[in-house]
């Protein structure tokens, strides 16, 4: 069953046409790698999937529900089920790590403070970041911020996770940590889309890749299949032969 369906998606900013009929889908439990050169508009697709950008035309279906023309109020229910992991964590810098993680629990659940505390402690322990509970984002390293960003995104137990370059600029240790977290979420049956330039991570976690080029999806295939095809766009991209 397709959890995400994007059909003939078109988007432009002013006179700059970014997408001219992007079409692809993601099956339940699948981890899809969305790859393409810088400025190809990968993040725009992710943002549109959660309603942060509006499509000019085409449709975006989440669990067969078209979200393209939903109002902000209607999107709230969709957003509770979709986690968005921002490239730089996008943590609230005026709040501690605890308050960042408690944010969606306070907004969308009836849990009391002690239950919230318990749940956050478990989550942080799982992520190996329990010691950072009372720190502010400015006191954390880039890698820790990204991991906290991921932890915050999944507090409500989402069905879908959208990762926007989660390993960009990270050292190997933090990259592997993020990879492990993505695989852990995948093992729980969560559907996900990973936007990345970090191909080793993409290959390690993605079941399938779509390649965004010239404003449309130019290639779509299973990871193994594409890697075994020497002239595939993904292989050319890895070798630096195309952007």
């Amino acid at each position, binding site marked *: 069953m397709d959890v995400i369906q994007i059909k003939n998606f078109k988007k432009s900013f002013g006179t700059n046409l970014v997408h001219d009929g992007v079409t692809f889908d993601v099956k339940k439990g699948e981890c899809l790698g969305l790859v393409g050169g810088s400025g190809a508009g990968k993040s725009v697709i992710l*943002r549109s999937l959660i*309603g942060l950008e509006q499509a000019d035309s085409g449709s975006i279906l989440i669990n067969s529900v078209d979200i393209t023309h939903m109002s902000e109020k209607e*999107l*709230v229910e969709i*957003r*509770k089920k979709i986690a968005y992991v921002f490239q730089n964590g*996008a943590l609230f810098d005026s709040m501690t790590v605890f308050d960042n993680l408690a944010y969606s629990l306070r*907004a969308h659940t009836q849990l009391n403070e002690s239950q919230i505390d318990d749940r956050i402690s478990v989550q942080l322990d799982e992520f190996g970041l329990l010691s950072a509970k009372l720190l502010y984002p400015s006191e954390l390293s880039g890698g820790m911020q990204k991991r906290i960003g991921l932890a915050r995104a999944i507090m409500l137990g989402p069905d879908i996770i959208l990762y926007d370059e989660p390993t960009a600029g990270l050292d190997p240790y933090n990259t592997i940590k993020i990879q492990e977290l993505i695989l852990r979420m995948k093992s729980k049956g969560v559907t996900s889309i990973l936007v990345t330039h970090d191909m080793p991570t993409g290959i390690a976690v993605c079941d399938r890749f779509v390649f965004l080029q010239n404003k449309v999806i130019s290639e779509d295939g299973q990871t193994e299949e594409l890697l075994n095809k020497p002239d595939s766009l993904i292989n050319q991209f890895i070798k630096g032969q195309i952007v």
Partner: protein
Amino acid sequence: MKSKTWTTTIPDDFKKSFEAFLIHLGGCGLLIKKFFSEIRTKPFYFSLLVEQIYLIGVKSLPLIIITALSTGMVMALQYGFGLEKFGGKPYVPRLVASTILREMGPVFTSLMLAARVGAGIASEIGSMVVTQQIDAIRALGTSPIKRIVIPRVLACLISLPILVAICDVVGNLGGLIVGYYELGLDPQFYLRRVLDTSNIQDYAVGLGKSVFFAIFIVVPACYFGLNVKNGTKEVGLATTKAVVTGSLLILIGDFFLSKLFWIFDKWM
């Protein structure tokens, strides 16, 4: 190539400026509409409102006290020495009180708040946009209007009239100090003149204006902050625009509001 003359360039510049003005006006109007539509629905973040009242109101207090004190003192000094040759010193309390209550209190307090709070709000929100914190608020299923705009607008609407009231008192106190030490007026006489000659309308006009001025400060600040697009450079521009727009609205709006309140005065 034909060189551009002032006759061809000015209309284009004017057209662009006018377009930008209309866009900003519409944007502020939409923001006010969102404010009214979202304030009626749950949840209401009371703790954020209290936090903003502290940041906007309480933290502005020293600035407002210094401004009010020096304004009152300077006015008493100018009126006192100016009227001395006509034997008009006894009118100083009335003149200082009336000017502070109706004009200087609300205008100076609001200008100070536009500089301090308007700039702060625009830069804070702009930075949140650049670092995707506003996107994160939306992505986590909550509303930036509820969490960011409503607490700031309400805090400004609550704080500014209170600050103006404090400014009124401190400004008159400044006048009294100068009246006593520089003009040789008896403090009891000064105080009695202030209380006897100021009427409820004088207080109401100043406080009434401050409600409008609060909107003039906070709405453009939130609007310009939320509309930062391309990085940190625009945060600075948004801050400048917020302060300039807020200050101009206060100064221009003061004329029309003064006129409006005079009409009300005549009715009453």
